[in-house]
């Protein structure tokens, strides 16, 4: 953090209990899946070095407990986030319904400078499971209503779309940081993320 060259991107993953936050993070970073992850208590993070747009960055991914009452302690963990990843379980409609409150809660607690432009990415996880509770279309509509949040349908278990999703997350986080670093004028508008992902069933994706 001391070095000027090194870029640290802070990403926070939020969503209901059991939607797969820890599994997604671990699949992305360790390329492994386990049924035996314990429910997250408190908070933890993992880091990964990667190249985004020819720049070496360290992505720090924060994983927190999903039960609502534990969010009151979240403020310390949300602070300074460059991107917020919202996760729901495509087989569990309740987890989709909570997305609004997760997003609102994050904006309140993290209080980013420009809440309306703060980058979120939505992940519909567990696409390997049946039956579907939330259609792709419904998720896409929600994303559009929130200023075109990029949307990925993932399976942490089968490593489906996880890499792509996090690449997009990293880019969004980086652009957010650049804006905050007064590079703002180069990106007057929210980056449009409208290209469909190459993976099946997925809707909006990262423009990059």
């Amino acid at each position: 953090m001391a070095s000027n060259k090194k870029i640290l991107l802070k990403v926070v993953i939020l969503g209901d209990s059991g939607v797969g936050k820890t599994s997604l993070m671990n699949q992305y970073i360790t390329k492994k899946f386990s049924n035996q992850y314990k429910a997250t208590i408190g908070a933890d993070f993992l880091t990964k070095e990667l190249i985004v747009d020819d720049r070496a960055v360290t992505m720090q991914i924060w994983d927190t407990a999903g039960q609502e009452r534990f969010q009151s302690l979240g403020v310390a963990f949300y602070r300074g986030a460059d991107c917020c990843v919202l996760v729901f379980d495509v087989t569990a409609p309740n987890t989709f319904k909570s997305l609004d409150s997760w997003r609102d809660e994050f904006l309140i607690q993290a209080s980013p400078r420009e809440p309306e432009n703060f980058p979120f990415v939505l992940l519909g996880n567990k696409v390997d499971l049946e039956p579907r509770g939330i259609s792709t279309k419904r998720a896409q509509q929600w994303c559009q209503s929130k200023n075109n949040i990029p949307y990925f349908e993932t399976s942490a278990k089968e490593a489906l779309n996880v890499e792509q999703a996090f690449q997009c997350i990293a880019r969004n986080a980086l652009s957010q940081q650049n804006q905050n670093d007064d590079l703002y004028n180069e990106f007057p508008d929210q980056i449009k993320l409208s290209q469909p992902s190459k993976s099946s069933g997925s809707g909006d994706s990262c423009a990059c």
Partner: protein
Amino acid sequence: MEDNCEGCMELFSQDGVLLKQAHSYYIQYFNESGTLYITEYANTKDRFIEWKPNSVTVHSDSHDSEWSFVNAIYRGEQMSPQPPDSKPKYIKLDMNQVRSFKVSKKNDTMTFFDGKGEILCHFFFQHGNCFSLFAALKGLLKTTVSKRDKNIHIIVDETLQLNKSFATLDLFQDSQSASIVWGFVRSFQEKPVETAFGAFAKIGNTIGNNFMPSSSPQPIEEEVITNDVKEYERGVESSDGASPKDYEIIHSSPELPSRLQYPRGNPLSYDQWTALQDSEGRIEDVEYTKLHIFRGGIAPSLRKVVWKYMLDFYPWNSSNADRKTILGKKEQDYYDMKLQWKTLKPWQLQNFVQLRDRLSLVEKDVTRTDRTLPFYAGDNNKNLQAMSDILMTYVMHNFDLGYVQGMSDLLSPILYLLQNEVDAFWCFAGFMERVCTNFDADQAGMKTQLSNLYILLKFSNPTLASYLDNQESGNMFFCFRWLLVLFKREFELHDVFRLWEVVWTNHPCNNFHLLISIAILEKQQSEFIGEEMGFNEILKHVNDLSGKLDVNDILDNAEGLYYQIRESSQLTNEVRQILGLPLIAESSPKDDSTDSIENELMANVDKAYENGLHTSYF
């Protein structure tokens, strides 16, 4: 422990104890290091203080000069030792002979006196930790602090607390004995030490040993003791001044006295547990039992039994017959509650979102709780089903609290150990009674705990506290997991058993788990500060400690920390309050209410008993 100790139970043991003064018979052992025991004979219930020398002697010049006054009178004898066989091999002191004892200010010596104030034995504790012995004695005996010297503890005879019964039963057939007893009672002008209470059922023993056989029985005369002690003290103090004797200082900070070692004791064994019960299966001395568990834990095979008491499944004073009734009732209640949710129709659940959400959360967590343990591994595991049923039934048991993440972590070890659904449910419910505020919807309980942790840390280790403060970590969030599930995620299962049962004893203070937290943190201090860790690094470092901690070492240090804090001259009421120590705002209200010492004593015993039963520590 000793070959000639048949049918005797070891209640306490501690090594590193030097014999400094005793009958001249034992002169060959003076200044030798040995092990001190408290033993009890199963048949007679007679208790003894025993001291056995180690084979290796620890004579040194500095010791000799430091303690020269002790040896002076025997110097000649020591020059020409007797053949070893002609002398007793170890010291065995009948506890009934001991009428008072004195703990030095530095907690490194203990002296036992007889009824005339004569020194029976004087021991020096190499590690300065005579608090363990003191605590054990307090568990066994009722004592009161001498009015003239707060370091002298006078043994209140058990007869005292039974005096009501004596009066009604008219046990004293000759009036002389009776007057001795009542004179003895009246001689106490001070409030007895409130925590001390012992076995109630040793009337015969007590009378027999203290009052009946002696031709001229003497009630305790405090004057006599104090005079002797004064003389004795002069010697001690002059020698104390001669050389510093801070043994084994592990940690010191400007505010606190030195950290002493409190090595763990032996686990409570099956035989000991059996001996603690009366003929009807009641535990006679709850505080002593808890103290033993605090010091050494419970033998693994016995946990299944004792945990039911620790977790309020059975009251400590329940008889065998009571327990049969209680078990029947608890089984019935459990299955009634289980039926309540098991028999809900699908449409009922459909329209009962609060319950449905809780049940689904339970399902989610059960499938990811300790699945690496063979006990919970694999598909269609019956134990997982039991865990799920228990948690769902708990939702019905306490709907306001319901199910909150972390609860499955608290249940898992209990179910693993008890292997019975009904037992595990009620023990879990008992555990939840203690920790339910951890799961408050507004997290108020956790916030209080984190803030109390910070207060204790700031008091005991201001350097570390201020470092954490500067790193935006003064909120102690990085300890959240430790506190929420009482270190369940930090240790392997058997260490969790050990740590929990220690915490459940409520010894030596309230919120001992916060001192455990500090004991862990202070070991990380050099890394935190040396590596200039910030908020993120501290959290990561603490999370990564999981599986790398030594439970015994941590308990030793946490206990040591407790005594450091307690003995600190700058102890604040804020800290006292957290640890459940008496506050010092008001001076002791009733000093000499001479007429109803008996009532006061009984009230204190009741209070101590209440405290023992209601062991909530948050």
